[in-house]
């Protein structure tokens, strides 16, 4: 952990070398996801409601997924951009360091520019939480925090899977984006509006619904089952097979010519 902070400081120092570029990227990131927010806004302007969710409820859902995705991207960027970590030889270097390889890959990238998105999620929370007609009791606040934490773990897991695939092939990685970027886009709205097949897939295969739809229905009092609030733990459980896949991948590592 101490080492990770040291690495973060180094990334920060690097980023500071290019102040203007850093500021512009943060702004750019903010604008990009702001347009998604406008998308929701206009959609509701037109139709009044999506499924039976109100504007504010959807916003909370959107912000939680956005928060989780951005946090995962901020800190697990080394896995998301793993092709480049392999191709520029950084991974070879990580293999000759006396530390867990996974930790070093985790340390290899940090995208502070993604804070723009993270900030935006916070801004939307700041608006939607008081504006919604949800009574914010302690258990509901807890559920919301669980959604963010579980979601971060889930997306981190997806990034690790994506990185592990890099050990076997460098092609077909776009396919994985269906789950990472696609998950974020789908996650804009509560998953049940897409129908049962989608909901089932995102419950049992990739537990996105467990960090989103189920706890959200607890927060919005659509269900009284408290265990729905604990379902985001599935995001952490999801990490277990991801780690296993990673270990298999490392053993198959072929390195690149130099």
């Amino acid at each position, binding site marked *: 952990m101490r080492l990770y902070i040291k690495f973060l400081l180094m990334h920060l120092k690097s980023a500071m*070398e290019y102040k203007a570029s850093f500021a512009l990227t943060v702004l750019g990131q903010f604008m990009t996801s702001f347009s998604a927010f406008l998308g929701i806004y206009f959609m509701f302007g037109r139709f009044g409601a999506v499924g039976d969710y109100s504007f504010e409820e959807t916003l909370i859902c959107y912000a939680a997924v956005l928060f989780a995705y951005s946090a995962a991207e901020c800190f697990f960027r080394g896995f998301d951009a793993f092709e480049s970590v392999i191709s520029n030889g950084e991974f070879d*270097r990580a293999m*000759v360091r006396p530390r867990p390889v996974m930790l070093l890959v985790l340390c290899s990238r940090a995208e502070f520019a993604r804070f723009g998105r993270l900030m935006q999620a916070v801004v939307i929370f700041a608006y939607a939480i008081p504006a919604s007609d949800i009574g914010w009791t302690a258990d509901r606040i807890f559920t919301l925090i669980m959604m963010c934490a579980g979601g971060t773990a889930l997306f981190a897991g997806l990034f690790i899977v994506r990185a592990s695939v890099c050990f076997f092939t460098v092609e077909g990685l776009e396919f994985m984006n269906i789950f990472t970027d696609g998950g974020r886009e789908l996650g804009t709205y509560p998953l049940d509006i897409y129908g049962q097949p989608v909901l089932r897939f995102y419950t049992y295969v990739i537990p996105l619904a467990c960090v989103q739809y189920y706890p959200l229905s607890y927060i919005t009092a659509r269900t009284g089952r408290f265990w729905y609030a604990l379902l985001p733990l599935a995001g952490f459980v999801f990490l277990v097979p991801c780690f296993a896949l990673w270990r298999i991948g490392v*053993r198959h590592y072929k390195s690149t010519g*130099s």
Partner: protein
Amino acid sequence: MIRLVDICKSYRVSRRGAGLGSAVKSLFGRRYDLVRALDCVSFEVGDGEMIGYIGPNGAGKSSTVKVMSGILTPDSGECIVNGRVPWKERAAHVRDIGVVFGQRSQLWWDVPVGDSFDLIRDIYSVKRADYRQILDRLISRLDLGELMRTPARQLSLGQRMRCEIAASLLHRPKILFLDEPTIGLDAPSKLAVREFIRSLNRLEGVTVILTTHDMQDIEALTDRVILIGKGRILLDGPIERLTAAGGDKKIDELVADMYRAFEI
């Protein structure tokens, strides 16, 4: 002590013609060729030796170094470095070795070299007092004084290489792998790097495995040469074996002759 016995490693390489047509074809069925990068490689290196590891491009030099440094797991064979199997006890093993990849930097591009060194100290958890001592010596011997506060991106290639070598020695490894350390350097830098490597080996007894295409490196530094071609060890012996046979030919010509003779 390094011992390799019958190390084999093959890669699958996909083959396809150039052009869009064959690119589309390769989407459906693809032919793979099995390339034997290492074909029963065996050799031994004693403590304190300095070895020149040579061979044409793609002969398997880097693959061998990667097996010995724990990056690659071979398909079969045995490799013991200081009593450990590199890919099984990776963390303990890599504390003993230093690796310099001549074409790849381990320094942070945008931050001063000194900061990169400090981070490496943290990665290896070198004690502060030891670190100060090691660093001071490296700074004076490699003449790094002014470079420590310069970001790596502003260093010349020669300066960068000196910093790379220092970075690989901060944890005081017993074995140093140098993968083309003099590539692209000007004459004074080459001489400085060679001089440093020699003293490292002679004075401190660090085992050095040097891969290079620069035969002058080999002549100036090593007593023993291992030649690899198409993944097989073709020659292993003192450098005089090479030079004696050729009369007054230059060593570059001798090596070219040899590559031709072995059809590699």
